């Protein structure tokens, strides 16, 4: 509890530092590129268009409704995957700052994850417009996305915090993470409905915590209904567990990483 109190004090006390780090994340990524920030939106949009066309014909689904289905899964998965991988790099990538000025180390993963959250929300807004024009529906259930976002964010942040520390000692993890994420997207119900699968793979997917989170995004966006309360409870539990472990692990190791940079 005192760990958490100290971290919250740091954030309040030095929120200007945190804001500068978030700004750095967002403004520097595409500096001096022609499309600038648009790349953040263009990249998933192009990927999704191609996937929608290919997979809708494989699964023999209507392209428009499949696109909405895919979109709801991708938005959740992307937030998770980018937050975890980018957090993983956040300490190693800021070696120069960590070794030379005092900044609470928690700020690095935190700033990165904020930037990813902002990206995700912007992507959601811009893609929703496209979805609406091709015939998605708006319903009150979309309000349910708010808690879903919060829970998924904390779930990803917790894992990201652990990754950020381990990567300092074991840099191969960055590459391992990339592979895991590629595999994980197929072990999560992003491209398909889990019901369509055979039993073995299906159990695997049902064990995957991300399935719960994707459901929270898919019900309101694709089906236009609130997800079952149970799904929220499970997701909240996962998020709490992940965040607790993440903060505990981070606080235990953060002082030693300076020497290993």
């Amino acid at each position: 509890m005192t760990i958490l109190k100290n971290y919250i004090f740091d954030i309040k006390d030095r929120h200007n530092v945190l804001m500068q780090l978030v700004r750095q994340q967002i403004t520097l990524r595409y500096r001096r590129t022609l499309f600038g920030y648009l790349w953040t939106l263009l990249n998933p949009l192009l990927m999704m268009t191609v996937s929608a066309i290919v997979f809708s014909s494989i699964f023999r689904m209507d392209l428009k409704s499949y696109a909405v289905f895919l979109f709801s899964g991708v938005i959740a998965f992307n937030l998770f995957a980018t937050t975890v991988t980018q957090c993983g790099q956040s300490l190693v990538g800021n070696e120069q700052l960590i070794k030379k000025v005092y900044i609470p180390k928690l700020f690095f993963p935190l700033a990165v994850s904020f930037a990813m959250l902002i990206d995700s929300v912007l992507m959601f807004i811009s893609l929703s417009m496209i979805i609406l024009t091709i015939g998605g529906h708006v319903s009150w259930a979309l309000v349910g996305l708010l808690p879903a976002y919060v829970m998924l964010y904390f779930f990803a942040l917790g894992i990201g915090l652990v990754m950020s520390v381990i990567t300092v000692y074991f840099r191969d993890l960055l590459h391992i993470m990339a592979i895991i994420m590629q595999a994980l997207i197929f072990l999560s119900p992003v491209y398909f409905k889990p019901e369509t699968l055979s039993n073995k793979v299906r159990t695997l997917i049902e064990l995957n915590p991300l399935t719960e989170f994707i459901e929270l995004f898919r019900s309101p966006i694709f089906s236009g209904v609130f997800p079952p309360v149970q799904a929220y409870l499970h997701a909240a539990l996962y998020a709490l567990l992940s965040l607790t472990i993440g903060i505990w692990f981070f606080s235990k190791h953060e002082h030693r990483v300076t020497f290993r940079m």
Partner: protein
Amino acid sequence: MQKIIVDNVSLKFRMYHDGGTSLKEYFANLLRREKRKNYTEFLALKGVSFNVADGERVGIVGRNGAGKSTLLRTISRIYEPSDGNIQVHGRVAPLLDIGAGFHPEFTGRENIYFNGAFLGYSKDQLREIEKEVIAFAELEEFIDSPVKYYSTGMYMRLAFSLATTVHPDILILDELFVGGDASFVQRGKERMNNMIDKSSVMVLVSHDPSLLRSLCERFIWLDHGKIIADGDVSVLDAYCAS
């Protein structure tokens, strides 16, 4: 009033021998009965204690590897003491490395806000002092270019100007910043003396006896992470004679 209280501080440093562990070494290590560590631990600071009161200018001397820079970094909170306690009262402005806390891709102006945040300035404060910082650093022409194109001198001027435009309570200084191109040194000195007059604390690490003599009146002699002597200019004389 005590501004810096260093109480029995030890710092255990880990020096790693390689660039990282490869898979082969990792598994070889698992099979070994005696684990071979890929780092050595050593004490960079051993039970260091001293206080610095308001208005003092402290010079830290010692041979290479005595722990001078480590001590400054520990006071600036970059390293966490493994043992003991450090209390610092007031806003600290550490000037330890050239370009520390600057982002090379950001312009000079953006870096005023970026680095300024780390120095403890609020956004409004920075907006207020922006002009003055640029003028003192003599960078009006280049302030909107990325700092990666800056020369070392330009870097230092910006860093020094930013750290000292609002009087910090505590200035922690490496001799690097007191060197630099001649006219700026003169003005830098004026400003620094001015700051100390306004009852701020300065801690300076240097190898240059004449510089130390001109700026400091108290000296701490470090050797192998321990304080050998702490006192007035006689400590400096003793160190120079050794």
